């Protein structure tokens, strides 16, 4: 995993099924999702918001990969692009041995069952007019899981038990549940179709601490029990440190740093990662540590800065940063960093 999930390293690779794909459940390469900005009467395209602009991520089966960043970095669009809830502009998404972006909707269908999403706000993700039983059974019906309605009701009961809800509550409506319980319903709905990959988009961000702990424990149990793979999209580094195996840090549509959790958090090699970490309040009474190490505000993703996209806010910027765009340079400690400071140091193996 450590080496070379970078454009450079891949340049010479044949454009076919990637090597080592048996290990990676999901392999995203060069993903671009641009949204047109339309102006005027004729709605002509006046430019693009480059929400995702060349992202590579590989997820090892059975692990949790955290996609970390602040609002506007494109992390949610990556998740939605993988499921093709938005149509990517370019790139490859290898899943189950196939490039999803080359597939017709019909061919995509069976793969869609294997990839599910859990959303931040279960209330907006769950149709309030349906009972929980029907919300959970909906996916089963559309993918032909379970023989008949009675069988599916049995399955719904089993899944509710799995997410620690009372199966008798399947006849209730979403509004009759608390926030934490609704998130359990959201998880049950995702698991009902027996997916391999679950994309959790800020799945615990809206929850109170005590409820968040319950949901995080549940997600960890389910991963172990069902062999799930998680893409965990979040802004919360303390959650990431606790549960992720690998981390990708995003900024303005690009990955700026990648690596195994421990290595990346103990030895961040990109100024943005450092800034993010310095901004997380400490809960140790002997330490007050936050520093505003990221300057100013986020530039518009429609007009990302030239050169390194982070240079306008970077406390370590130097001569080349506003002129040339850094690549993702591999690191000896595993992973990679998109920073000239790394490319110049001994750590780098790239020219």
């Amino acid at each position, binding site marked *: 995993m450590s080496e070379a999930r970078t454009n450079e390293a891949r340049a010479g690779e044949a454009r076919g099924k990637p090597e080592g794909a048996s290990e990676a459940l999901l392999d995203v390469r060069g993903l671009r999702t641009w949204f047109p900005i339309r102006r005027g009467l004729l709605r002509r395209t006046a430019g693009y918001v480059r929400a995702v602009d060349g992202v590579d991520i590989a997820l090892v089966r059975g692990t949790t990969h955290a996609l970390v960043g602040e*609002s506007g970095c494109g992390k949610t669009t990556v998740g939605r692009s993988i499921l093709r809830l938005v149509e990517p502009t370019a790139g490859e998404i290898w899943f189950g041995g196939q490039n999803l972006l080359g597939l017709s909707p019909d061919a995509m269908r069976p793969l869609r069952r294997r990839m599910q999403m859990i959303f931040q706000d279960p209330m907006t993700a769950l149709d309030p007019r349906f009972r929980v039983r029907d919300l959970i059974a909906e996916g089963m019906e559309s993918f032909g899981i379970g023989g008949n309605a009675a069988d599916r009701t049995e399955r719904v009961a089993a899944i509710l038990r799995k997410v620690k809800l009372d199966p008798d509550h399947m006849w209730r409506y979403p509004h009759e549940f608390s926030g934490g319980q609704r998130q359990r319903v959201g998880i049950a709905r995702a698991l009902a179709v027996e997916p391999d990959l679950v994309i959790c988009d800020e799945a615990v961000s809206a929850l*109170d*601490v005590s409820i968040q702990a319950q949901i995080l424990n549940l997600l960890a149990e389910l991963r172990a029990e069902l062999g799930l793979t998680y893409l965990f999209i979040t802004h919360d580094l303390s959650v990431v*440190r*606790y549960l992720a195996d690998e981390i990708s840090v995003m900024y303005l549509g690009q990955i700026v740093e990648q690596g195994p959790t421990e290595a990346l958090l103990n030895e961040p090699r990109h100024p943005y990662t450092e800034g993010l970490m310095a901004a997380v309040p*400490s809960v140790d009474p002997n330490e007050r540590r*936050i520093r*505003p190490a990221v300057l100013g505000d986020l530039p518009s993703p429609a007009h990302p800065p030239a050169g390194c996209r982070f240079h306008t806010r970077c406390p370590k910027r130097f001569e080349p940063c506003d002129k040339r765009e850094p690549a993702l340079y591999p690191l000896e400690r595993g992973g990679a960093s998109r920073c000239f400071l790394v490319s110049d140091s001994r750590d780098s193996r790239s020219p």
Partner: protein
Amino acid sequence: MTPLLEVVGLTTTFPVGPRRVPVVDGVSFSIAEGEVFALIGESGSGKSQTALSLLRLVPKPGRIEGGQVRLGGREISSLPVPAMRRVRGHDLSMIFQEPMTSLNPVVRVGSQVVEAIRLHERISASAARDRALSLFKKVQIPDASSRLDAYPHELSGGLKQRVMIAMALATNPRVLIADEPTMALDVTIQAQILELLRELQQEFRMSILLITHDFGIVNELADHIGVMYAGRIVETGPRQALLASPRHPYTQGLLASMPARAVRGQPLHEIAGVVPPLSKWPPGCRFCTRCPRVLPQCETVWPEVLEVGPGHTVYCHAVREDVAAAAKRA
């Protein structure tokens, strides 16, 4: 030293069916001059209603039932409305979590600050504008003079919150009430705002009542902490004592359930269940339905206050028994 702001037995009820439920129930705390006091609690704990109650801004059908609020020794909870309005603008200022709900979207932000200044002071428009400019600089709004003419939607979330802080500082308040001031902000912007609050608080020796759900923010900013659960303060203490040796089972549970305090690969501590709905609050300790150390009396009798250290108090029958048992052994 007499406290600057003293709140005693503040109680506010809301109707739930045929009854009125005290969502703020006998809340007492005090804040010294230049001190940051944090009220921490999960959603529905009553922390925001406590702030609104002491400002007497509780929305209907809520009703303040009793309690005293003293500011610099002066009783303000019984002031007539116009006098209270002066106190609110002048001595007590408030910033809210979502600046967009407090800023008028069709008025330039500079004009809104000018208006706030002139509401409380008889100065000319141009003098007020100069003051607004210096406030914008004080809260480190870059390019301050041109930002005075910006509309709220033209500013980022962080800048809007800086405008709110500038507005709150306009009358040199003695106490700033900050209700989740960084809730809507990204973590790097949150760090900027917390740093700003820290600097301003030190520069003006301002007292701050900080309302938050985040122990990290509390640790970074507060001197003293009150933990609220279902309308009541269950534990108060100096920051270090409370965070290093919490005594109430709820505080202990909350801190233990934080991923930042957890060990990788081990399950997080869980507080069982959920906060009971308003209609089902037990008559005794409200945490009794979720408490791992619940005793028979917890369900019916609210525990007396117990001092467990300097300035560190807790309301818990189980802790009282611990202390009694320890005294017997000694």
